[in-house]
């Protein structure tokens, strides 16, 4: 044991570490510093202003609103992308007899939205979610008119609508990761469980889920980061509107940069980083612990 441990050398980490530190960590540290300056396009000199930008952020109702929206959006997408992704992965893995092509067909179709540019998503879903669009048309046709809404206009639901589009786009992507995990589970585990007389739900609970912990971790972390740093769906569907009702942190960052307020923009980015780190790192630690136990 000791013999081999000595064989693993940290030199192997160096290539990755070198480019990562030079091209990511270093700029990030410079960015952290900029977030404490009044750096703005066109001013003559840049001054250190301490925590002024952060004070500004936490006193600005619009920016606070964007933080709130970021949370709502994140919670919804994490829960549903994972539930749906997992369900799809299990479903497209169900033995359909000799009809393997059926499984492959579903796997491909569900993955398709992930490869499509958000520009398309924006223009297409703007029409589908239009008050006279396909979705409301469908709801009215099947007698569910009471569910028909102003999907992207009603400020109470706009964040959920955007989250739903994101779920539409990315569930298949998460399905693919779950699927890779499920297919990595050896068949004999299931056969043993079947001999023990386990029902298919029991097999799911006692074999699939525990052995799938690594995939679950990846998917939860990925969707969490995707939610907190989510940008393109919001940008393409409403760009924060109507008014400021669907602004999230990342769209505010773009807006601040667009106004040439780089100090404030980087400060918002720093807030985002702290927020993401505070949520994700403890979660990751906990999940790693579970993974070992599993």
């Amino acid at each position, binding site marked *: 044991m000791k013999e081999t441990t000595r064989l693993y050398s940290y030199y192997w980490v160096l290539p990755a570490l070198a480019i990562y530190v030079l091209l990511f960590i270093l700029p990030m540290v410079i960015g952290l510093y900029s977030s404490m300056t*009044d750096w*703005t*396009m*066109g*001013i003559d000199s840049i001054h250190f202003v301490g925590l002024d930008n952060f004070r500004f952020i936490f006193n600005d109702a619009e920016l606070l609103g964007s933080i709130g929206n970021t949370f709502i959006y994140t919670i919804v997408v994490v829960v549903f992308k994972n539930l749906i992704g997992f369900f799809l992965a299990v479903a497209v893995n169900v033995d359909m007899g000799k009809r393997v092509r059926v499984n492959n067909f579903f796997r491909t179709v569900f993955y398709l939205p992930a490869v499509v540019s958000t520009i398309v998503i924006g*223009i297409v879903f*703007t*029409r589908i*979610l*239009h*008050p*006279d669009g396909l979705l409301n048309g469908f709801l009215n046709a099947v007698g569910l008119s009471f569910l028909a809404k*102003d999907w*992207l*206009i009603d*400020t109470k639901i706009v964040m959920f609508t955007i989250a739903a589009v994101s779920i539409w786009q990315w569930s298949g992507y998460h399905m693919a990761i779950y699927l890779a995990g499920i297919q990595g589970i050896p068949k004999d585990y299931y056969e043993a469980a079947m001999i023990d007389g386990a029902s298919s739900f029991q097999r799911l609970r006692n074999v699939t889920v525990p052995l799938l912990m690594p995939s679950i971790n990846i998917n939860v972390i990925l969707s969490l980061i995707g939610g907190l740093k989510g940008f393109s769906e919001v*940008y393409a569907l*409403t*760009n*924060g*509107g*109507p*008014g*400021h009702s669907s602004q999230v942190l990342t769209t505010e960052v*773009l*807006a601040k*940069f*667009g*106004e*040439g*307020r*780089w100090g*404030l923009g980087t400060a918002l980015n720093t807030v985002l980083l702290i927020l993401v780190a505070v949520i994700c790192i403890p979660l990751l630690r906990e999940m790693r612990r579970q993974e070992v136990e599993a």
Partner: protein
Amino acid sequence: MKGIACAAILAVGLASSIAAQSAKNVTLTIEGSQEFKVPSNPFFNQANIDAFQAKYPNIKVDVLVIPDAQTTQTLQTKLATGEPSDLIIYNKVSAENELTAMKNMVDLSGEAWVSHLKQPEILKSPDGKIYGFLLSISTGGMGVVYNKDIFAKYKLEAPKTYAEFLKVCDTLKANKITPLYGPFKDVWTFQIWPTSIWGTVAAKQKAGIFDDINAGKVKWSAVPQFQDTLARANDLFKKGYFQKSCLSDDYNGAPAAFSSGKYAMMLMGDWFVRDLATKDPSINLDIFPIPAFDDPALNVISQGQVGGCLFIPKKAKNIAEAKLFLDFISQPEQIARDLANPAMAYLPNFKDTAVPKLQPVNDFIYNAYVKTGKITTEANAFVKVDMNDLWKYYQDMIGGVKTPKDVLVAWDKKFAELMKAKAMPGF
């Protein structure tokens, strides 16, 4: 004597180094927003670029079309890092405010083409120098674009006052035609109303108002005319002259909407008339000034700031070649080729050029409004900061969340904040 010799040697050296530079292969980059990638823009026109490359075989022109929404950020980033493209397309006043043109761009006042300009003053920045290059004098403008056939069918005339406007809307509505198409999901569309009208307010009713606002002496919400303007627009919503889904509809849907014949009017500019003429020639559109005032004399066509100028950043790699490009496309024979192309024909701002055959809508605007002085410059041209937030507040007003007064009060706060960030005096 020695000095002169030195200078002569220096000059020869300089000239030969420029010559040497021009002789080596150079890629000249032109960068601009998607917004300017339109058929009528001569700077992106392939025929012009081909002709230039034919004359200067060592120069290759590379056009970078960047997304509207990220244009400011992209250009600012490249300027800040000292890596700008050789030529940048940007609106004149916006370049002064957002790209600090007077600091970052090469002063072009001494270029040969300046002496041929018919109206050099339109290109001058507040410091009296010229930084941006433009071929044309504007023959475009914003107002109410309307379907002539629908108007003819219901025997309507282009309204000249607000009262007449309401009457026209009523007639249309009674005949099951939606009077106005509102593409207000795009925030830049509704603002055509206030920016046009406030331009007239500044020109005719409250001289110097924007100087006072920019100096922090007057608040936006303290100008009664501004509130009235928004209140009148708000009335149009309340009376149901716009389609119900106007906050869900965007400008991309406008061609289909007008093509359907169900909509009669839209607050827009000449570009939509030209665009629809190519997409659906069966629809006849024209334009009239926004009739927001009771006094017909105040209702005029509004023009944007001088748009889409070419700038040469001081830190550009190929300044000499960039100047060559400007010089080249301002030559009479190049302009003549532009004007021969009906999709592009513009009114050149150069002496010794003929007035070309303009597109019908531009011909109309030019003869009926520009020549007779019935035009105004939109208010946006006087504002020193990005107005996107104000535009978002308009959406709140349309959605019934804010009153016209709330909009201006919220904007006062945001405006002060933006001016302060730019270290403007008075804030």
